[in-house]
Structure formats: C-alpha cells, structure tokens
C-alpha cells in the first residue's frame, strides 16, 4: 500500500475546513511545516482512518473532533496491487466508511464492507503494522505506554517474525516451554533463592541438620561427661578401698601411738631440766646475795675513812672562801661610790650644754623676728600699690582693644575725609600782591587748594564779594564721613575720650596702671608667697622663741660638748669597775655557799658511814662471818650447775619426737581427710551419674545420631534436587536463547546495515520476551537501552522500525512508514546519517515525514507535497 494523498475535513483545528496533502511520492515525502500547523492532526487522523472503525467513539476518535463539533471526515488516496482507491471515513456524526476506485469513481465498498476491505489491505485483523511503523510525535522508545497497545504490538512482532523465521513456538518451545520453565522455576524456588542459596524446605532441612548437629554435639559432650564420671567413680571407689584397708590403718595407728609416747617422755624430761635450772638459778642468787653483803660491809668501812677526810678538808675550804668574800665586798662598795660621782658629773655637763644651746636659739629667733617685721611692711606697701593700680585699671575702659578700635575709626574718618576732599571743588590762590581774599573773615591762604562748599562766599577786597557755587558731587562721601566720625566719637566716648589724642593718653594711662599692678604683685609674691598673714604668724613664732634672749657672754658649744664627753667616758669606766666588782663578789659568795654545803654534806656522810660500819669493836667479827657465808653459797651454786648440765646432757630430742608425732598425726589426718574427700567425690559423681544416666543420655545420643543421619540424607536429596533443577533450568535457558537467536536473525539481518550507518561495528541485542532491542553493543561494551541518550534511543527506534518495514516488504506487504517529528534529540551529524538510512530504505519503501524543523530537513531531500487548506 502506498499513500497518494490525505484529506481531512472538520478535524480539530481545521474546523469547517478541508486540509489536504497531495503529491505524496513513492520514496521519501517530507511535510515540513511550522509548529501548530496540524501535522500531528494528520498523523492521528490517518491512524484513525486505518485502525478505528467508522462507528467508533473511542477517545482517539473523539479527540479528532473540533470544539465546534460536527462530523469528522478523513480520507486517503492509496495505491494497492489492485489499483488506486480513496479510503474515506466519517466519524461521530453521520458515520460511515467508503472505498472508491479513483480511476472511475466507482464505490468498491461501504461501511462494514469497507472496514473488511481495509483489514484485508493491512493484512491482519489486529492492529496491524502501523503502530510498529508509524512513530508518533514524542514517542521516544520502542513501545507505547498502554498495556493494550503493547500487547497488540507484541503480537504483531511475533506474527511478523514468525512468518519469516518459522513458527515461534516450534523454535522456542512456545507455551509448553513457558510452562515447563515456570514449573522448573517454581520447583527451584521451593528450595532455593534466586541466587541459588538454600531456601524453603531445603533450608528447613539444613536448619534441622544444624540443630540436630548442635544438639548431638551437646549430648555427646554429656555422654563423655557421663563416661568420665563413671571412670572417675571407679577410681574413687578404688581409692576408698585402699583407704579403708585394715592393715594399713593398724600400722598408721601403731605409729601414731608410739610417736605420742615418745613425745610425752621428752616433754617430762624437759620438766626435770626446768626444775634443775630453777635450783641453779636460786643458788646463783644466794651466792650473789652473800657476796653483796660482804662487799657492802667492806665498802662501809672504806666510806667511813674517806668521809672523815673529806669532812675536814671541806670545812677548811669553806672558811677560806668566807674571808675572800668579805674582801670583795669592800671592793664593790668603793666602786659603787666612784660610779655615782661619775653620773653626777655627766648630768652637770649636759645641763650646761642645754642652757647654752637654748640661749643661742633665742637670740637667732629675735633676729628673725626683726627681719620679718621689715618684710611685712614692704609687702603691705606692695599690696597697697597693687590695689591702687588695679582700681585705675578697673575704672578705665581704655583697653588696648578699645584703642585699636579708636585707631581703626580714626583711620576710616581720615580715609573718607580724604575722599571727600578729593571730590570737592577747590580754590588755590596765588598771591602776587598783598591783597588777600577772605572767606568768612578768614584769609584764604595762598598756594594751597581750598575746598569749596556748595555755596562759598568770598570777599575779594577791592573787588567785592564773590559767591562760588559748586556742584554737590560728594554728598554720599560726606554722609559716610559723617557716619565714620559718629562711630569714632561713639568709640571715644566708651572710654571717656573726646579726641584721638585723648584716647591715646587714656590708653597709655591704663596700660601703665596695669604694669604697676603687675609689678606690685610680683613684689608681693616674692615677699609673701604664702600671704602676709603667714609672715605675721612666723613673726609671732619668732617672737615667742626669742623669749629669754640676753646679751651675756656664752661658752663655746664645742667646749661644753667636749666636757660632757669626758664626763661620760669617766662614767663608763666607773660602770665597768662596778660591774667587775659585783661579779667577783657574787662569785665569791657562791663559792662560799657551795663549800659550806660540801662541808655539811661531808659531815653527814661521815655520820652515816659511822652508823653503817657499826660499832668499831665488832667490825672484825662481822667481816669474818660474811666471808664464811659467801664461801658456803658459792659451793651450793657449783653443785646445782653440775646437776643441771647432767640433765641437759641426758635429755631426749624433743624436736625429733615432735616431728615423729606430727608425721604420724598428719598421716592419720591425711587419710581421714582423703577419705572424706573421696566420699564427697563419690557422692557427687554418683549424683552426676544418676542425673545423666537418669536422662537416658546415651539413648538420646544414639537417637540423635540416627536423626542426624536421616536429616543429612534429606538435605543431600534437596541438594541433588537443586543441582538437577538448576541444570535443567540452565539447559532450557540455553536452548531457548539459541532458538531466539535464530528467531531474531532476519530482523538483525535487516537492521545491521542500517545500524552501521550510525554506529560502525555496533549490534543490537533483543529481549526474548518483548522481541524488541534491549541493548546496544559497541566498542566491546554493552549498554542497556535505558542507559542510552535520548538521541541514540530515538535513532534506534526509527532504525528498528525501518528494519521491520523491510520485513513487511519482503512478505509483499508494503506499508508506508510515517514519522511525526521523530528526530527531536538527534544532533545535526546524526540527523544527516539518519537521512542516509531513510534514503537507503526509501529505495523500495514509502516514507512520510512530518517535521517542524524546516531548515534541518532540507537536506533530507525527497518529495515536497502540496499542502492545501480551504474553507468548506
């Protein structure tokens, strides 16, 4: 089928109009119009014409109706193998379809028959290839959005490819394969995850194995504990038997008894030794006592003799000391008298010196008071002068400032006066005789200009009177002069002056008064910097200090100070002599007291020694008695010592006896303790054994062993099953993919040369489910369709459709390709290449291109149809 012309009447924006495209060529035809022209309206109308029943009120049909309503009419002139026809449909109102032969205008079919005619023309009762080949504006991908359209296009592709490569089902296993694969997937999913890990029943079986294994390990450990407990108990029982052996016990008891007896004997001997040692110690004490008594007696005799000598010597020494003490007392008293005389001499010299110093000070104060009197007088004079000068100053306003203003005013008056005079009419007389002209009785001087008033009356002797009238050209100047003179007078009057010379005098007078005041103040500041009152106070103080001043002759201070120093030196010397005498006297007194005390003590000792030594007539008999007693005690001590040494020599070894007893005792205790421990151990082991055996732990272990074996077998079966199913799945996948590769062969064959125009050595991979391209292989890398740019995606979409169109053509089903602004994202370079691809296909394929890119599509070439819109 080829399109020859399209006619739209009352379609969308063509309300009440007829829009036609005529002159559509065999190859490429480009309808290049601006946006909003209505290209998509043409596209949708063609789609409705061929794929919507004339009776349809589907959304796609309703969308064709303009706002004003009315019937929508779409017609297309087509060329078929049977000739050229006009296919026309009227939608929504006065609906109908009609096929008319163009050659003679004969009606070929109407309404439903016309629909069948169209279906036959398209070659299928379904949606036909148009959706596959006709690309709407904005449809970037390969599939439409709606599920219905997707399904329809899928069927179309399947149908198209089936007819080329054979029965799809035969190749891929079809639905039978699908069901088997689904069944495999279901079976596999029952025991594995998508990634092949254990799941479902297999995982459960595996978990059972793990749980049983863990329990088995635990129970086996308990069985081992039980075995160990049984073994330990056996050993403990053997130990107990050994410990309870009667012979061994008798031997231990016998050894213990013997050791105990030996220990008691050793302890008794120790008692004997202790008694002997006590006897020896007692004898030793007695011996020492006898010796002490003897020594005391002999010592008393010696002490008596010594005390006699010492008492005599001490008495003599005490007497001698007393004499020395008396002598030193006399020396002390003489020193005291000398010291007192020295003190008095010092006091007298110091008093004389003080009186002299006071007189000198009084006399000095008197002089100062006189000077102060003079100073006060001068200060008071200066004060009076300063105050008088200040009064003048204060009374006068003729300040330097005032004088400056007077001088300024005076200068102004002089300046203005000069100006007036310069402007006035003057008269200068040069007398050559004695006659003189007078004015108002005053002779007008000669050889000098005289200003004339406005009306000047001159008396010219001998001539008469002459009145000179001068024009009053300096009135303004005179007014300003008058003002200046007034100002000068005002300024002068401020300080009481009347003339400028007075002003100078007044100012000078005031300045002199200020100078005087300053001078007087300077004198005052010098004489009484702190005020005259201060001077007066100082004078009063000086007057007071000068009290008692006289004119008597005074000794020199230096002489007086020298006398005082000599007196003080004499006093120091007397003081030292007194101190030495006092010390020597005190020492002598102390010695005297001590010697007296020693003499007293020696006397007392003599008395005691006499008592201790007893009466002199019994002293020999006492010495003999004490010597005999001492010898007797010494003999008893030697005997006791001998007996003690004999006992010690004969004593058994107590440590050995103790060690033997301890060893025997330890042996008995150790056996007893071990027996207790073994008994306890036995009880604990029996308890443990009863507990473990009571639980039938061995039986449980054996049971677990069996369960584990069965569970492992089950798990192994699942593993085998999973491996088998996975192998089956991979085999099915491989074979179906291989079949589909064959199935996609024709489309790849058509696509390859077209694709190479855009991408050298590129290839498309197809999705086995959708039968559409799913990825692009280029530069040895595969990119999914979703990852490609918009431009590449739309180019692939168009190329794929071109390939499908060529497949249609190979079947003898020539269908036009319609592209509605299908190249939106492609750059200029790609568009040129796409034009090449389109041109290549257009050699035996009609292609109708709608585009708004008028400039870009100029290079596409092809026919440019006539587009006409007329009112109906």
């Amino acid at each position, binding site marked *: 089928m080829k399109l020859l012309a399209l006619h739209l009447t009352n379609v969308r924006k063509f309300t009440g109009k007829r829009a036609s495209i005529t002159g559509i060529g065999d190859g490429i035809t480009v309808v290049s119009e601006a946006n909003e022209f209505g290209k998509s309206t043409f596209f949708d109308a063609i789609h409705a014409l061929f794929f919507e029943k004339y009776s349809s009120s589907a959304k796609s049909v309703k969308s064709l109706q303009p706002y004003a309503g009315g019937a929508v009419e779409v017609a297309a002139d087509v060329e078929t193998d049977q000739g050229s026809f006009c296919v026309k449909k009227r939608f929504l109102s006065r609906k109908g379809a009609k096929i008319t032969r163009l050659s003679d205008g004969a009606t070929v079919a109407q309404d439903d028959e016309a629909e069948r005619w169209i279906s036959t023309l398209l070659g299928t009762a379904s949606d036909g290839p148009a959706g596959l080949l006709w690309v709407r504006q904005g449809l970037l991908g390969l599939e439409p959005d709606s599920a219905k359209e997707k399904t329809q296009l899928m069927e179309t592709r399947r149908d198209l490819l089936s007819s080329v490569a054979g029965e799809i089902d035969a190749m891929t296993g079809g639905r039978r394969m699908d069901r088997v694969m689904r069944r495999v997937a279901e079976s596999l999913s029952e025991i594995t995850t998508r990634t092949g890990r254990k799941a479902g029943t297999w995982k459960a079986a595996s978990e059972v194995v793990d749980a049983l294994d863990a329990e088995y390990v635990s129970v086996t450990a308990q069985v081992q504990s039980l075995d160990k407990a049984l073994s330990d108990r056996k050993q403990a029982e053997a130990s107990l038997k050994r410990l309870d052996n009667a012979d061994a016990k008798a031997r231990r008891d016998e050894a213990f008894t013997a050791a105990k007896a030996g220990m008691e004997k050793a302890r008794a001997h120790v008692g004997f030794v202790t008694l002997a040692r006590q006897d020896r110690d007692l004898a030793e004490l007695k011996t020492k006592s006898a010796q002490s008594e003897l020594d005391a007696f002999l010592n008393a005799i010696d002490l008596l003799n010594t005390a006699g000598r010492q008492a005599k010597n001490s008495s003599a020494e005490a007497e001698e000391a007393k004499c020395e003490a008396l002598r030193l007392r006399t020396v002390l008293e003489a020193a005291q008298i000398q010291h007192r005389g020295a003190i008095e001499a010092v006091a007298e010299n110091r008093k004389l010196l003080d009186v002299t110093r006071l007189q000198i000070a009084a006399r000095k104060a008197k002089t100062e008071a006189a000077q102060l009197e003079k100073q006060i007088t001068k200060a008071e004079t200066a004060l009076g002068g300063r105050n008088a000068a200040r009064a003048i100053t204060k009374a006068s306003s003729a300040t330097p400032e005032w004088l400056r203003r007077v001088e300024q005013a005076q200068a102004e008056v002089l300046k203005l006066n000069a100006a007036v005079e310069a402007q006035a009419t003057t008269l200068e007389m040069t007398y050559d005789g004695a006659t003189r002209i007078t004015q108002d009785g005053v002779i007008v001087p000669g050889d000098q200009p005289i200003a004339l008033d406005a009306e000047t009356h001159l008396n010219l002797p001998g001539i008469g009177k002459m009145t000179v009238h001068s024009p009053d050209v300096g009135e303004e100047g005179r007014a300003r002069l008058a003002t200046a003179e007034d100002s000068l007078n005002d300024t002068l009057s401020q300080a009481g002056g009347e003339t400028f010379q007075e002003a100078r005098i007044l100012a000078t007078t005031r300045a002199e008064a200020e100078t005087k005041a300053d001078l007087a103040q300077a004198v005052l500041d010098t004489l009484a910097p702190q005020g005259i009152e201060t001077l007066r106070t100082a004078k009063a103080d000086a007057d007071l200090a000068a009290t008692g001043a006289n004119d008597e002759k005074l000794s020199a201070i230096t002489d007086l100070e020298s006398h005082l120093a000599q007196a003080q030196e004499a006093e120091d010397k007397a003081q030292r002599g007194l101190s030495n005498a006092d010390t020597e006297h005190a020492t002598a007194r102390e010695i005297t007291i001590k010697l007296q005390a020693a003499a007293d003590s020696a006397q007392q000792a003599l008395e005691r020694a006499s008592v201790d030594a007893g009466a002199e007539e019994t002293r020999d008999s006492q010495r003999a008695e004490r010597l005999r007693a001492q010898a007797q005690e010494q003999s008893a001590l030697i005997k006791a010592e001998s007996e003690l040494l004999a006992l010690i020599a004969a004593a058994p070894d107590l440590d050995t006896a103790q060690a033997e007893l301890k060893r025997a005792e330890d042996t008995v205790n150790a056996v007893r303790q071990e027996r207790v421990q073994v008994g306890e151990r036995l009880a604990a082991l029996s308890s443990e054994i009863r507990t473990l055996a009571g639980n039938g732990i061995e039986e449980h272990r054996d*049971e677990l062993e069996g369960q584990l074996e069965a569970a492992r077998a089950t798990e192994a079966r699942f593993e*085998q099953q999973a*491996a088998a199913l996975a192998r089956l799945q991979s085999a099915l996948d*491989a074979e179906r993919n291989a079949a589909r590769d064959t199935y996609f062969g024709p489309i790849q064959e058509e696509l390859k040369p077209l694709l190479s125009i855009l991408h050298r050595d590129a290839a498309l991979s197809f999705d086995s489910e959708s039968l559409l391209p799913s990825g692009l292989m280029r530069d040895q890398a595969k990119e999914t369709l979703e990852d490609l740019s918009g431009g590449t995606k739309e180019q692939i979409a168009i190329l794929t459709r071109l390939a499908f169109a060529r497949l249609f053509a190979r079947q003898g089903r020539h269908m036009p390709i319609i592209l509605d602004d299908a190249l939106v994202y492609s750059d200029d370079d790609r568009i040129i290449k796409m034009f090449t691809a389109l041109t290549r296909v257009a050699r035996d394929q009609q292609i109708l291109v709608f585009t708004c890119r008028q400039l870009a599509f100029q290079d596409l070439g092809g026919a440019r149809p006539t587009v006409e819109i007329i009112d109906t």
Partner: protein
Amino acid sequence: MIKFIHSSDLHLGKPFGRFPEDVRVRLRQARADVLPSLASLARDHAASHVLLAGDTFDQTTPAPSVIRQALNMMRAADHLTWILMPGNHDHANATELWRQVARDAPPNVILQLEPEPYALNAQATLLPAPPTERHPGRDLTEWFDGATTGETVRIGLAHGSVTDFDSSEEGSSSVIAPDRARRAKLSYLGLGDWHGQLQIGPETWYSGAPEADGFKHDKIPSALLVEIEGRTAPAKVTSLPTGTINWRRVTLDLAGEDSCETAHEAVLPSLRERALTMLDLVITGRAGPLDRVALETAIVKVAPDFLWHRADLGALGMVHDTADLDAIDRQGALRAAADALAQEAADDTLPPKAREAAQAALSHLFSFALEV
C-alpha cells in the same frame, strides 16, 4: 535334665533415630514386647530359665524407665528364672546399669557379672563369660576349659564373635574359639552378638536377636529352645519365631524392557504384611523415562501401606529412545534441551556428579513436560 530359652541382643532402649517418630515408637514397643514373648515361649515349652547372652540393653546407661520396665516384665514371669549376662553394649563395667539392676532386680533375675560357675539346678551348671568392656580383646571363654562343675551338665554362655567370623555386629573383635564347646566339654554354648540366628557347631549357637533392628539379616527373628537330657546327651535345639516387625530390603532389578510397574508389584509383600513391614526398596538396572515416571508414581502410591518405606532409585540407570524424547517435544528448544541433557548424562568423560545431575534434570524435564 534342663530346658531353657536362649536369646540375646534384645537391645532394649534402642532409639532408631533415623526413622520418623511414629515408626520409632512402634519399633521400641516391639522390642519391649520381646520379654513377655520370651516368657510366653518358656511357659509354653515348660522351660525353667531364659538365658540372655548379652546386649539386653542397648547402652551402658539406659534410661531408668527402660531398666525398670524390663525388670518388671521379668518379675511378672515368676515361673522362670532370667539369667542376665552383659554383652558388649551393656558390658560388666557398666557399673551404673548393673548396680541399678542389682538393686531393683526381682528374685527370679540372676545377674552373671563374674566368670564363675553358676548352678542353674542340681544337674546343670552355667559357665558365663561376661564381657568386661565393649572390646575386651581376649577370649573370655578360655576359663571354661578348666572350670570344675562336677558331674553336672556344662552350659556355656558368651557374647562376641567366633574367630572364623569375618565380622561381628557393629565391628566387635572376634575372639571366641569356635571349638570352645568341644574343648570345654560343654553340652551347649549359647552365644550372643550376631543378630541373625546361626549355628556354629553341634553345640554352639547364636540365638540371634528376637526382634530385628535392621535390614542386615534376612531370617525371621527367633529364640532357641534348648533341651538337654543329661551330661552325655546332645542338646536338642528348636528355633521359635519371635519377631513382629518384618525388616525387608528388596532389590528390584529392572532390565529395561520389563514393565516397571509389574516388576515393582511383584517384589512387594502381601497387603496384609505391609503394615508391619519396614521396606527398603533398592532399584537397580535401567528404565525408560516414561517407565521411571510410572514407577515413581507407583512407589508414591504404595508407600503409605508400609510401616516405613524407602525407595532408592539412585542406582537406576536411564535408557531412552527417540520416542521417549518425543514425549517431551518433537522439536524446538524443549527437545534440544532434552537432547543436551541426555547426551550429558551418557557422557563418560564428565564427572559422575555432573552426569547424575544431568540425568536427574532430564527426569525432572520428563516429569514437568508430561504434566503440561
């Protein structure tokens, strides 16, 4: 004159852990019922003693309930005397077990824990050889030769393997002299350990376990009734069936051309027996995929008839022809996958595991393809 029942290997308390819970309960109960059965046989045949030649208990420390219930059953059979000798599972060194038995045993239960002569009655003396450990490592019956028993009948009782046995139960060492009865002038030597009943010599017998516990032995579990008239008279030994559970391991060898379903039906026990049968079906040979599917269906169908049922098809090879593969598909990807798997399963150059996986995958493919 003495008449007694000789039995052994009761293995009371054996858990049978590899079987499902309901089967385990049934198997344990069957073992517990052995004692009343033996008592009944003894009563029926006027036997005065039951001699248990070891492994009465399955463990050295069985659960107290197992011990108590066993002793209670023995106590109930007070018309006879039970002679209990340890075996390798419940050897004499299992102190806790035998202490408990000794403590709780009724008067008609006699323990034989020491190798000492015991007068069964005035005319007969028992020479026991109780194992001291699980693996004693020596012939414990040696002492029989020199044992003094006067003029009484000498009856030996031992547990273990004879030396010309290749292997005993569960691998215990074989040390009992096979001619011990002759050398020790025994009228009868009762042995335990071998679970199948077996006569070793004129006077030497393994009684076998009274209730089977595995598929190893194909004879019906029985006890032995022994009658000895006098010291010089030969022992009269009669086998008395005792087992209630039928353990059967059946091998079904398929030649490939047979009808698998028919062959399978032929090897199955009668319907009446099945409820008390433990069936371990081992299928070998070769079968086509359709036959295999049919066989698997048949197995699944009959399995509930049995107390326990297992079918091992691991050794069943697959044979298939074009017609079989046509059942999957005549062409296309499905058929190509089937061809690839069949080729892989037959490829001897591949590892066995890969071949097995391919064959199992092909079996699944057959199953799934036939479902749809």
